[in-house]
């Protein structure tokens, strides 16, 4: 019904709406930058940009995985729990060296992703519910493994969190590299096309003979692995394993970044550039509110409004 009214509307308006849906997020980022440059003191400093970018890097990394899952018309609520799990496991195995602990983290994350993917692909459970079980179970496991915050004194972990190349922190470089990699996979590989086809219509993909189950499982495993990378990087930056609060509400931030960035929740389309910009937009919005002494509760309310507004604007896009 919405489609019909859209078609009969004057062409200019349709174009404007489409333009806003695709590029609105960049316009929003630009607008926030300009507004902040004018009203926020010390905004236009390299130090501030560095801080903002380092803060947003884990969100971007989680959102990349979330974008892939949403592209298949799924959703992954367990990403925050996987971050917490990564923090716990890193803290537990750091004694054996950074690399071995990272391998164990990867194993745990792959296990969570495999469980999510199997529930969705083989059992046919709705993604929200499948990942909801691991959202709670995963954080519980993280707390069982490491009941409280633990300080980590490991030079290689510390340098991962705060080191840089020519002044650009590792965190930003890693996030940028992963974004390019995921964008390449979505746009240029068979796997990416299969993923989008499944999101477009799973029955059609099945009829076309695509390896639907395999692709779905890989997507959930990749999403969990990316969340684990974000968890390790956040842990490295904090220099502490924090299973209680690390990754709290991360699923929400990641979904918001993806949706604000123009990827429809109905699947079949993935916008990686928009997802990165979406994460930056939320980060800037939060930073703006905090810098002007508005309490954290207001930023939560503002984020809620942005989510609803973004989903509302994206309504009727994609299929249906």
């Amino acid at each position, binding site marked *: 019904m919405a489609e019909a009214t859209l078609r009969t509307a004057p062409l200019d308006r349709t174009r404007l709406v489409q333009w806003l849906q695709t590029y609105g997020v960049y316009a929003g980022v630009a607008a926030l930058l300009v507004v902040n440059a004018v009203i926020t003191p010390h905004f236009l400093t390299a130090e501030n940009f560095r801080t903002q970018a380092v803060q947003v890097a884990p969100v971007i990394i989680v959102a990349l995985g979330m974008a892939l899952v949403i592209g298949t018309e799924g959703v992954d609520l367990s990403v925050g729990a996987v971050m917490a799990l990564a923090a716990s496991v890193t803290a537990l195995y750091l004694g054996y060296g950074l690399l071995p602990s990272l391998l164990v983290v990867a194993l745990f994350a792959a296990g969570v992703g495999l469980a999510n993917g199997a529930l969705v692909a083989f*059992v046919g459970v709705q993604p929200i519910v499948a990942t909801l*079980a691991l959202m709670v179970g995963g954080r519980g496991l993280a707390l*069982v493994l490491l009941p409280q915050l633990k300080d980590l004194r490991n030079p290689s972990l510390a340098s991962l969190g705060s080191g840089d190349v020519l002044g650009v922190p590792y965190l930003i470089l890693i996030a940028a590299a992963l974004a390019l990699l995921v964008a390449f996979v979505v746009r240029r590989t068979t796997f990416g096309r299969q993923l989008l086809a499944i999101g477009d219509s799973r029955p059609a993909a099945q009829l076309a003979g695509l390896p639907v189950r395999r692709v779905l499982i890989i997507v959930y495993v990749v999403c969990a692995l990316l969340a684990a990378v974000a968890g390790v990087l956040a842990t490295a930056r904090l220099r502490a394993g924090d299973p209680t609060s690390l990754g709290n509400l991360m699923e929400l931030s990641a979904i918001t970044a993806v949706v604000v960035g123009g990827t429809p929740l109905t699947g079949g389309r993935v916008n990686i550039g928009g997802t990165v910009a979406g994460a930056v937009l939320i980060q800037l919005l939060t930073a703006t509110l905090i810098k002007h002494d508005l309490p954290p509760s207001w930023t939560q309310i503002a984020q809620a409004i942005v989510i609803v507004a973004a989903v509302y604007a994206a309504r009727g896009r994609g299929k249906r």
Partner: protein
Amino acid sequence: MTTTNTDVPVTTASIEPPQDAHPVGSARSERLSALVQQHGASAVLLIVSMVASFSFDSFATGDNISNMATSSAFLAIVALGMTFVIVTGGIDLSVGSLFALGGVLAAWGSRHGTLVALLLPLAVCGLIGVVNGLLVARSRLAPFIVTLAAMLGARGLMLALTDEGADTYLIGKGSFLAELGQGSTLGLANPVWITLGLFVGGAVVLRRTRFGQHVYAVGGNEDAAALMGAPVARTKILVYALSGLLAGLAGALNAAWLASGVTILGSGMELEAISAVVIGGTLLTGGLGYVSGSLVGVLLLKVIQNVINQIGSLDSSYQQVVSGAFLAVVVIAQTWLGRRRQLM
């Protein structure tokens, strides 16, 4: 299914061609599936309770049972609203935040009298529920994302009211509100009576009213329901409003019970409520569900929690692992049972 060789229908069926054998077996296994779906949770509850009362002397004591009943009451009220939402095929992730918000509003309002303390949380949480419903029904947004946003927004509102969680509002002793939450009637705590009353009411509404029929119809097949003339949008708005209202009420009663509005409550409650509803036999795909099942689901979750506490050496993080695993198992079983029924 074919273990009972002496059974007459199966023997005759096995002689007849396979096409005829199929319906006989399917009717039987469908009945079995339906039975497990509807009463599986009650059976598990019975078994777990029996094992627990044999294993722990402190389990089947009057004190422990009444404690479990009281602490179940608040979750049960939330699960009641969630049942309606899930039967329409939706989901409400905002109930945990609304529970906390309801508690803070009740405690804050209690200084202006009992009426304010009770009506304020109902009004605010009910209103947020209406907004959820409007966005889901009229704007056709995905229920999980709308209610996820409401979860964030309601928690923000709650934090804004409590100076970022620093202020705790107390409920004066001896007030009617405190009596409502802490008192007991005929040996059962008042919140338990209120919960039982709400469940009876909820069951009547879902089973015996036109609105209840609409709830099932919308969850069964939305387009068919619309064609039959069921007010789809209004039904959806009402169920989300009901869910918000009940979450707020549960929060208010919980605050009255604790004598203060505690800001850290309610996180993870949406999962507990959804688990209880699903365990109780309500299908997440909508169209099928039982109010009584949700009550059994809540009791089962609380009994398992209690057992974990009794074991003692296990700390509370295990509860999260167990409830997550439990939800996964139930959902797998349910999907499997549902698929059997569809295929046959």
